[in-house]
């Protein structure tokens, strides 16, 4: 059983999640589910034509994954604000780790820094989550 989010203290982190290495099938599934068929995410030749060494993950795939750190806590509250900057590309075979650390808390809001890093500890997505607590 997860402890509730309201008990977390400033400076503490949510349990990290490390994803399986990114596969082409992951990106094909995301393209289908999201409707984003930009071929640089699925077809090698198109990625190369765009000057990339290979296909790259949709930024929104990584952002979507990152939000799951908060999914166990939706009985306590909800994500009121979620904003990120796409800082680096995610390639096939990359191993992405998802992190969230509590920066600040008020009576009914929790302010997290959220981060997705690759296997070289390079930041690929960085942003903030404001989690609004129910009373």
């Amino acid at each position, binding site marked *: 059983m997860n402890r509730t989010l309201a008990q977390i203290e400033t400076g503490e982190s949510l349990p990290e999640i490390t994803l399986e290495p990114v596969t082409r099938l992951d990106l094909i599934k995301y393209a289908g*589910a999201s409707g984003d068929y930009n071929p640089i995410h699925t077809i090698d030749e198109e990625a190369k034509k765009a000057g990339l060494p290979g296909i790259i993950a949709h930024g929104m795939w990584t952002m979507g994954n990152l*939000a799951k750190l908060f999914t166990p806590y*939706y009985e306590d509250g909800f994500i009121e*604000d979620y904003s990120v*900057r796409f800082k680096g590309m995610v390639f096939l075979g990359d191993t992405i780790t998802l992190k969230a650390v509590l920066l600040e808390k008020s009576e009914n809001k929790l302010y997290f820094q959220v981060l997705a890093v690759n296997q070289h500890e390079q930041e690929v997505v960085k942003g903030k989550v404001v989690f609004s607590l129910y009373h």
Partner: protein
Amino acid sequence: MLSQFIGHASGKVRNTVERGAVKKFAEAIGDPHPLFIDEEAGKKSRYGQNIAPPTFPRVFDYGTIPGLKLPPKGLIHGEQSYHYERPLLIGEEIECYAQVKDYYEKQGSQGKMSFLVINRFGNDLDGKLIFKVEQVIIITEAVRREMTV
């Protein structure tokens, strides 16, 4: 170049938060949590219903902003943000539209970079905001040159 579109919006488009689409999306982001996909879990939750993951609004139809044509390739997604008044419930109907919030250019080491900021909105059928999305798209000089006819 695109500054004349600032403030321009699409017409409102009716969308449904579809159960099947939410399941497919939740699986595609590796988050098939019962609260998103299991009807019983949804009923027992505080929402009395399943909800959609926060980045789900990617799938809705927001209509088109008249005259705004972006190239299908070569755009860079710079930033993305979501604001929610409450989670989206499965089965509910919403009205969506898009609006150009801003456009600006900056001189960078790779030439002139252009930034297009687009807002996307989801309202309930009474016109009350449920979510607002902000997307920053970066257009490089090479792509921008091709757009200029």
